């Protein structure tokens, strides 16, 4: 990528444009100061300069660092809470600076918006310039080719006109765009004909494509943020859910999305299986998990089945459904003081950090009489007793056990704010059992004072699903691939110019001078190409002279030479 902002510093263009005579300098300050327009123009020039772009890139990198070190509100709200608890004085200040939501913070947006403004301000004029030069001819050949960074000189027994013509054909064969003395004005120089050749325009195309594609990625991300949504749902085996706002656990719509935009599909979890490695150093690690689901894309539509796996989402109604995690839901049957069954079904328990799916959960029975009942406890899939504490030795349910503490009183559910189904507020309750009661499948816990009975009847698995819709996804991918293509193009191509002049010598031959220069990208490599090109030109010229006629076809042997050298 080259700096094009200051044309007078670029020898490539200066050497070529001396004839055109256009070297734009910075605007002179008006008498009496710059004025508002002048300042704005100055600010714009600064913004679109390489230096500021560099600074903004550094700021972007540095600004992303806190977003990876500190817990972020969007992905780890619990972590943010913990941070507040651990650093009560520091946390509010960090929050004010937006450090708990770095990537949505206004200052981060300012950085990348300025960067993109700088990008647009640089890329758009260059696009115009590229389009303008798309059909422009290479510049006229300079008079003194030996002053160019690469030059060669040799004699050949051909007339100058023929030599230049043959040279032109060779260069055209390599894909160079030509300009002879007959093109583009100027008097044809009969004494010393020349041909100019230029190649590598695609580099700038690739460069611009890359930067514009980055802009496209930004727009695609914005599209997703406006018109996309994310939702979560925990689904117990055997149950069904519909894609409606009321039936989803969490719903994060994009700015222009409402609940009415959700596709009307329903999904039933028919079965879920997880298998784990049973031996070796990786014992306990999951080796596979998959969920059998049946779904309808709209009410009354045909019922289809699918196997949902990690890395294999289900596409339905424009949304994608992902299998994110799983767990256990133990089943309980609670009979209250009147002898009525007031609770009977699976209760999702959530696995914590204890490992091997030791899960915690809560059972709330708000309609038990005479008092509301609540139970908190753990579900242990493969229970082992380690020094009096229950731990899980393996993630599969080989020896399932629950351990519960019972409460009675006021759950706080009859009024007030909504409660989490995974937490029990025991403020208005009294504990019924002194110690946690351990139950195996089929066993019951009898509550004191005839309050009722809880029976642990079994367990079923649950899965957690993520439902996402992102209309910006495919555009972002296309722009990403375009950016990669532009990058490769701009790195592989080099803009270079080759000039050939032939001066007649006494005796019917001519001295051929070849000169070349490459755009200053400081990557080198043109040296070898020029050397091989000069060698080929000389071989072709010598062959044409030896053939006795101005035979334009290059000698196959010198072609072979050339190819062999070029292969290095």
């Amino acid at each position, binding site marked *: 990528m080259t700096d094009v902002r200051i044309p007078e510093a670029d020898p490539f263009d200066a050497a070529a444009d001396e004839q055109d005579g256009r070297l734009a300098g910075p605007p002179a300050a008006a008498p009496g100061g710059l004025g508002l327009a002048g300042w704005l123009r100055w600010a714009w020039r600064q913004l679109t300069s390489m230096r500021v772009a*560099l600074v903004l890139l550094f700021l972007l990198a540095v600004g992303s660092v806190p977003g990876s070190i500190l817990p972020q509100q969007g992905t780890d709200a619990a972590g943010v809470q913990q941070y507040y608890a651990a650093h009560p004085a520091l946390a509010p200040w960090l929050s004010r600076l937006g450090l708990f939501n770095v990537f949505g913070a206004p200052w981060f947006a300012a950085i990348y918006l300025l960067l993109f403004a700088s990008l647009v301000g640089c890329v758009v004029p260059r696009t115009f310039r590229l389009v303008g030069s798309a059909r422009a001819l290479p510049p006229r050949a300079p008079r003194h080719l030996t002053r160019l960074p690469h030059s060669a000189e040799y004699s050949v027994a051909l007339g100058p006109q023929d030599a230049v013509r043959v040279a032109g054909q060779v260069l055209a064969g390599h894909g160079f765009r030509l300009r002879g003395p007959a093109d583009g004005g100027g008097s044809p120089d009969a004494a010393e004909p020349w041909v100019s050749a230029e190649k590598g325009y695609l580099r700038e195309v690739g460069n611009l494509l890359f930067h514009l594609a980055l802009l496209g990625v930004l727009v695609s991300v914005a599209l997703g943020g406006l018109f996309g949504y994310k939702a979560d749902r925990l689904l117990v085996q055997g149950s069904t859910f519909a894609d409606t706002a009321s039936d989803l656990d969490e719903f994060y719509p994009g700015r222009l999305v409402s609940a009415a935009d959700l596709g009307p599909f329903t999904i039933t979890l028919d079965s879920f299986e997880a298998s784990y490695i049973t031996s070796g150093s990786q014992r306990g690690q999951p080796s596979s998990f998959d969920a059998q689901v049946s779904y309808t894309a709209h009410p009354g539509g045909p019922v289809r089945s699918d196997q949902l796996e990690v890395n294999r989402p289900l596409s339905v109604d424009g949304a994608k459904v992902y299998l994110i995690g799983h767990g256990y839901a133990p089943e309980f049957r609670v009979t209250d003081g009147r002898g009525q069954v007031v609770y009977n079904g699976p209760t999702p328990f959530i696995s914590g950090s204890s490992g091997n799916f030791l899960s915690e959960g809560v059972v709330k029975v708000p309609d038990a009489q005479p008092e509301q009942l609540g139970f908190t406890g753990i579900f242990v899939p493969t229970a082992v007793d380690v020094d009096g504490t229950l731990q899980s030795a393996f993630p599969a349910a080989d020896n399932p056990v629950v351990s519960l503490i019972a409460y009675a009183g006021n759950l706080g559910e009859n009024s007030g704010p909504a409660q989490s189904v995974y937490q029990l507020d025991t403020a208005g309750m009294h504990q019924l059992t002194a110690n946690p009661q351990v139950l195996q499948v089929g066993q019951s816990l009898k509550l004191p004072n005839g309050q009722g009975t809880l029976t642990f009847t079994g367990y079923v698995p649950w899965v957690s699903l993520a439902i996402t819709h992102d209309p910006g996804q495919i555009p972002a991918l296309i722009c990403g691939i375009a950016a990669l293509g532009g990058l490769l193009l701009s790195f592989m191509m080099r803009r270079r110019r080759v000039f050939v002049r032939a001066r007649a010598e006494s005796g019917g031959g001519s001295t051929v001078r070849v000169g070349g220069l490459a755009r200053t990208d400081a990557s080198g490599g043109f040296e070898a190409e020029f050397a091989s090109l000069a060698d080929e030109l000389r071989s072709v010229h010598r062959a044409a002279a030896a053939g006795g006629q101005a035979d334009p076809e290059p000698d196959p042997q010198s072609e072979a030479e050339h190819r062999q050298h070029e292969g290095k």
Partner: protein
Amino acid sequence: MPINLALGHVSNDFMIAALLLYSLSVLAFAGDFAFGRPRRTQPTAVLRPAKAAAMAAVGAAGAGAASAIPASASPAAGAPAVNSGPPAGTPDSMPALAVPPLRAIRQAGRWVQAAMALAAAGVSAHTVAVVTRGLAVHRAPWGNMYEFVTALTCFAAIFFLFVMIRYRAWALGVFVMGAVVVALGLAETLIYTAAGDLVPALQSYWLSIHVTAMTVATGIFFVAAVLGCIYLAVDRYDRRVAAGKAAPGNGIVSRLPSIEQLDRLTYRTIVFGFPVWTFGVIAGAIWADQAWGRYWGWDPVETWAFITWVLYAAFLHARATAGWRGRRAHYVQLLGFASLMFNILVVQVFIAGLHSYAGVS
């Protein structure tokens, strides 16, 4: 599918063999410094232009070429040159052509020949080790930290072997291969993990694509980082010489490529690696969308991959900005590599996120 433990052992054996071969090649490169022919390396092996008379005389078979640096206009295959002869009296002035690499190696002396042979053998052994590991575990062999480091050093070594041959840069061999030895040695001793299965979240063909690209790119950036360190060391020496604080003509520096050549070589290395890294990020986004439902979520590893990308982009911009070329640009490049290392060693292991698959407890 059960792990093929036998192949796993084969892989370990070849890894040790590679380490030994690399170490010997480093010794041989160092031997070239101490005892080899004194010359400055030409990265593209463009030689001094020879006299036209000599070229015309060489003629058909290139026989009788001078034992010093012969200009070669005839192919080694021996086809006769088709010169029809220049008009008498006017010498041609042609830029000379590149010498074929094997001949260049031969001309560089015995130490370089030995070192290149050992390095090539080491690379072969290393490749066999990586491939057999993959066969042993029935998946691409970069699923945990140990596999990742062994694979990236393999790519770095392959890439640098290519660079040495293409640009005749064997003077840099002692440094880059030395770094490979250190990295591989640390991997073997500190983070070795026996062949094993992956958690289901990683069993996807996108694993091969995304992590392969990241591994290859890291290998390339590894080479660029070593070259950048060499650049900074030479630059510092030059500045000290200019300030009169050091004696000119340091033996090691005079054998290294010139500072402009070092700069160009580093630039071209990063130009090679940057698109691979970009592709790796895109492939990672595709994989993330398949596994977690969103193609970019500012996960810590994703964020640091982005930071690395931005810093290398800054390096590319710096080389086009007045005042930022040279030393400062290389600081940027090394900062980029540091962020890459931070990503692998710290973020993936210690910072919780969806990405914690390092397999290091």
